[in-house]
């Protein structure tokens, strides 16, 4: 087996898988190195929401571009990926939040995203298990959900058809200067190495501005028809939580099996693996505020995972100071959504193609130069 490749992707999560496929389609000979199983990091831990996020122009550009890419791919995705255009409802509990609904509607409408305001009755009709009364919500019909590990698996399977090589069970010890050193002793060579290791990215690049942001989810047994849309609360606007404190938000997602995913939680400086019962308790409390019936559903499993968070909530897509090393990480809770666009933008940079959207806002160099300010707390995304 040759040890030289045109590109080596570090990490077979959904971002790495998307990058591998895009580069393989561009004619490159690609290797993907993964220490565990395909999609076993944040890809396994997250919900799998595909959402057009409006919390900043750059975030919107990336997520809506990527959402379009997913929609174009939908017909080819095998059933195991469970792609479902169920839509998102942003739930408003009071008049202030309904004002936010109107603001979001205008924002989406100006950009061609179909959205519909639901009043209290329409919200109750759309989701009968929500508590009443709530003020209403915004239904965004193009949003979708899927099951991330098999989505990553599908992308890699397609990459392998284009002769990409997948190396599972291999840990990268060092990456730089065109060389990737693996734990069992061998070294791979490539002029292009892409760090797509998510929250573990700083292990290979000390000092990288990516922090672990812990999240939890609960999955229930099957209750077909209980929930029809992805539901996210707008209540974070009033929350006392700054963007760096522990926080929970109401966020539930239906799976095609009829199981519900209940989230979400966010914590910095919580680096231990394992379920944090205190924050799970708060998360359930919040969820039951909106959907009281959740309390009596059967919970099969609870788990935690680490999102890769950057200071300005935008991912790192592009070159580093090392001309052979590139980044595709820092996606926080939007990795599933933006994986396809990330791959496109990175490939555009590497292959000198015209990008569909400007990639400037996502360049890693923006952080080094100090051009980035912390975004205000109210803009903290609350989706899982």
């Amino acid at each position, binding site marked *: 087996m040759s040890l030289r490749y045109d590109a080596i992707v570090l990490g077979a999560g959904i971002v790495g898988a998307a990058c591998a496929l895009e580069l393989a389609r561009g004619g490159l000979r690609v290797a993907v190195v993964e220490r565990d199983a395909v999609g076993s990091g944040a890809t396994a831990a997250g919900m799998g929401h595909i959402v057009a996020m409006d919390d900043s122009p750059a975030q919107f550009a990336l997520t809506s571009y990527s959402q379009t890419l997913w929609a174009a791919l939908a017909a080819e995705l095998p059933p195991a990926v469970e792609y479902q255009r169920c839509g998102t409802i942003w739930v408003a509990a009071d008049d202030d939040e309904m004002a936010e609904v109107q603001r979001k509607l205008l924002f989406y409408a100006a950009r061609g995203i179909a959205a519909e305001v639901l009043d209290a009755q329409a919200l109750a009709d759309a989701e009968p298990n929500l508590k009443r009364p709530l003020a209403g919500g915004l239904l965004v019909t193009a949003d979708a959900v899927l099951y991330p590990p098999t989505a990553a698996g599908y992308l890699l399977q397609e990459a392998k058809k284009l002769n990409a090589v997948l190396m599972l069970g291999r840990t990268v010890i060092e990456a730089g200067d065109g060389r990737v050193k693996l734990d069992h002793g061998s070294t791979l060579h490539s002029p292009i190495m892409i760090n797509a290791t998510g929250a573990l990215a700083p292990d290979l690049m000390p000092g990288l501005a990516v922090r672990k942001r812990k999240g939890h989810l609960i999955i229930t*047994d*099957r*209750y077909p028809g209980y929930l029809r849309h992805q539901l996210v609360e707008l209540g974070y606007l009033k929350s006392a939580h700054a963007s760096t404190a522990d926080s929970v938000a109401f966020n539930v997602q239906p799976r095609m*099996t009829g199981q519900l995913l209940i989230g979400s939680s966010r914590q910095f400086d919580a680096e231990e693996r394992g379920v944090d019962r205190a924050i799970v308790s708060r998360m359930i409390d919040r969820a039951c505020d909106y959907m009281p019936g959740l309390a009596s559903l*059967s919970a099969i499993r609870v788990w935690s995972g680490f999102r890769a968070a950057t200071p300005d909530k935008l991912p790192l897509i592009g070159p580093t100071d090392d001309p052979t090393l590139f980044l595709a990480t820092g996606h926080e809770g939007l990795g599933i959504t933006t994986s396809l666009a990330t791959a496109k933008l990175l490939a555009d940079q590497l292959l000198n193609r015209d990008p569909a959207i400007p990639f400037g806002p996502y360049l890693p160099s923006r952080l080094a130069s100090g051009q980035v300010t912390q975004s205000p707390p109210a803009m903290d995304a609350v989706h899982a």
Partner: protein
Amino acid sequence: MPDSIQMFVDGAPITVSSACTVASAIAIAGRNCRTSVSGEPRGPLCGMGICFECRAMVNGKQHTRTCLILCEPAMEVVTT
């Protein structure tokens, strides 16, 4: 001496002993506990509350492990 009680399995009344588990009552009623996710008929496998194959709705509560529950008067059991 255990009492004789009447309960309902899929709407049909049956009479069983109060020492009877709901799983056994379902069998006595000639029914299977549940249908699997791909449509297969299923019944108890482990008999001790571990396999979850004996699940049915008991008095409105879904996903109840019937091998762990004793029958009670007027209990309503619905198989899937």
